[in-house]
């Protein structure tokens, strides 16, 4: 009896994973498959799950008729700057607020920074827009980048990590007369590197996927990020589905690759975030 329920449970598990896996994969595979269809085939009834005559015509049009390479560059520049800056300043701020230092008001500063996680972006968006306009930054990379340069989540994550670095390592360096900046660069950063890498991936993907703020501060077509471009295409070429799907495939490709190579790492960083605190 017990063995029977054990077997049943196992069958149920596999069936569940299989069903969920299919439910997740079908729309994604269909995105890829339909991007290789011609317009007429897209509307075939009953629908074709795979193109009968696969062709990359939609990709050709995307690259030749749209400044798609430009959109790519915009997304890359913005996401690289945002993620590198976030990681560096999160590590520095996290080090300052870790157990390695004590100064009056340290905990208050930490709680204050954590509190900013509760503020919805909508709350600060209007003044930020006014600030960007006053600085002449509307329609520039700067406007998109500035609100992403550092996040509370990164500070929290790095502080937790640096707390666990043995204080003796730093004290040994101090006895040798090393400057605190040297300790930061030579001891703290190398030991926090795995978490820094996870945060780098996390903020890169977050910036790559972001849509709301770029939508507010970018009007010019040349400065559109990929997410903006894919959204606009759905409006202007609303029935040219293979084109939209090709754009969707190309704009998710880099993060799919990042994910493929750092999957375990990636999931860990996203889950470690809260459960330890």
């Amino acid at each position, binding site marked *: 009896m017990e063995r029977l329920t054990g077997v049943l449970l*196992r069958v149920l*598990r596999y069936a*569940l994973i299989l069903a*969920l*896996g299919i439910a*997740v*994969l079908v*729309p*994604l595979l*269909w*995105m890829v498959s*339909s991007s290789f269809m011609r317009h007429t085939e897209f509307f075939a*009834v*009953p*629908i074709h799950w795979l193109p009968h005559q696969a062709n990359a015509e939609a990709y050709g049009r995307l690259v030749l008729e749209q400044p798609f390479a430009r959109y790519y560059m915009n997304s890359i520049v913005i996401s690289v700057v945002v993620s590198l800056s976030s990681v560096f300043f999160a590590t*520095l*701020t996290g*080090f*300052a*607020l870790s157990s390695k*230092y*004590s*100064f*009056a008001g340290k905990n208050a*500063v930490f709680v204050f920074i954590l509190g*900013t996680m*509760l*503020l*919805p*972006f*909508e*709350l*600060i*968006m*209007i*003044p*930020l827009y006014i600030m960007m306009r006053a600085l002449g930054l509307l329609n520039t990379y700067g406007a998109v980048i500035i*609100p992403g340069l*550092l996040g509370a989540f990164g*500070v929290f994550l790095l502080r937790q990590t640096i707390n666990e670095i043995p204080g003796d390592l730093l004290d040994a360096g*101090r006895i040798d007369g090393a400057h*605190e*900046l040297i300790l*930061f660069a030579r001891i703290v950063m190398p030991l926090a590197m795995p978490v820094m890498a996870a945060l780098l991936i996390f903020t890169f993907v977050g910036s790559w996927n972001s*849509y*709301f703020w770029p*939508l*507010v501060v970018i009007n010019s077509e040349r400065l559109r990020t*990929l*997410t903006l471009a894919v*959204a606009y295409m759905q409006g202007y070429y609303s029935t040219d589905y293979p084109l939209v*799907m090709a754009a*969707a495939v190309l*704009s998710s490709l880099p*993060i799919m690759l990042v*994910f493929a190579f750092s999957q375990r790492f*990636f999931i860990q960083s*996203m*889950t470690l975030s809260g*459960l330890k605190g």
Partner: protein
Amino acid sequence: MTSGRARLFKRPWDVWGLIFVIPGLAYFIGIFIYPTVRTIGISFTDYNLFTPPVWSGLHNYATLFQQGIFLGSVKVTAIYVVVIGVANYVLPFLVALLLFRSRPVLGIGRAVFFLPVILPWVVVSAIWKIFYLSPGPIGFLLGLVGLSYPVNVLTYPGTALWGIIATAFWKSFGFYVVLFLTGLNAIPETYYEAADMDGANAIQRFRSVTFPLMRSTSLFIATVNFIGAIKEFDPFQVMTAGGPARATYVLTLFIYETAFKFLRMGRAAAASLIMCAAIVLVTVLQFRLFRPERD
């Protein structure tokens, strides 16, 4: 002077902690606190970005609560937050309980379930907008199990929100499954052994071991889920633009359009403050509800 310094910094190098915190602290003040204070100020004015703001007291707040569009957006947001909140709690918890301790499949399953989580919402919206067409892929799949799909769900006020909810669930459930699995893995084996020695059955084990020990995981998930859902903007703007007939017009879309389409900065600022108050209030309530008993 010396004694003041001694209290501020215990050890000579502690001053560097303060120095290192300055850039980050200045950034958070400049990007979060200063704008928050300004938003509060703007909410008491009429301001269109081009002519100087005019003081209007509580008029923006009063108008909001008489405005059908605002109240409607609050209602749509509330439905979305509650439905997706319950769905993202109950179903991933069940899935995680079933997957728990089946190592070989777990790795692959986890990676696959996580794919939609990392994709941009704009891409997910594009896929599902087309998936929901009628005739189209969803209709075909439902046809296989003998169900009919006569119209595109996104084009009817009664169903559009549910279409987006289904898509949002598809996108996010993998994230919550992984969070629940992490929480389950953190429960020490000895608790289950003790329960087994007492002859507890599966349901008793869940009620007396798993569920109580998942309190902090539950709190974290409920909070992340709620804040994420109330801030959700992309699918509503991209999939339906708030329509049809404002059936998917959420609070974030209301704030965005009030500010940047109708240039009513004061009213948008007031609405964003109400939204922030709701976030703080519900988060505090969730902490009360799920707080671990002794901690």
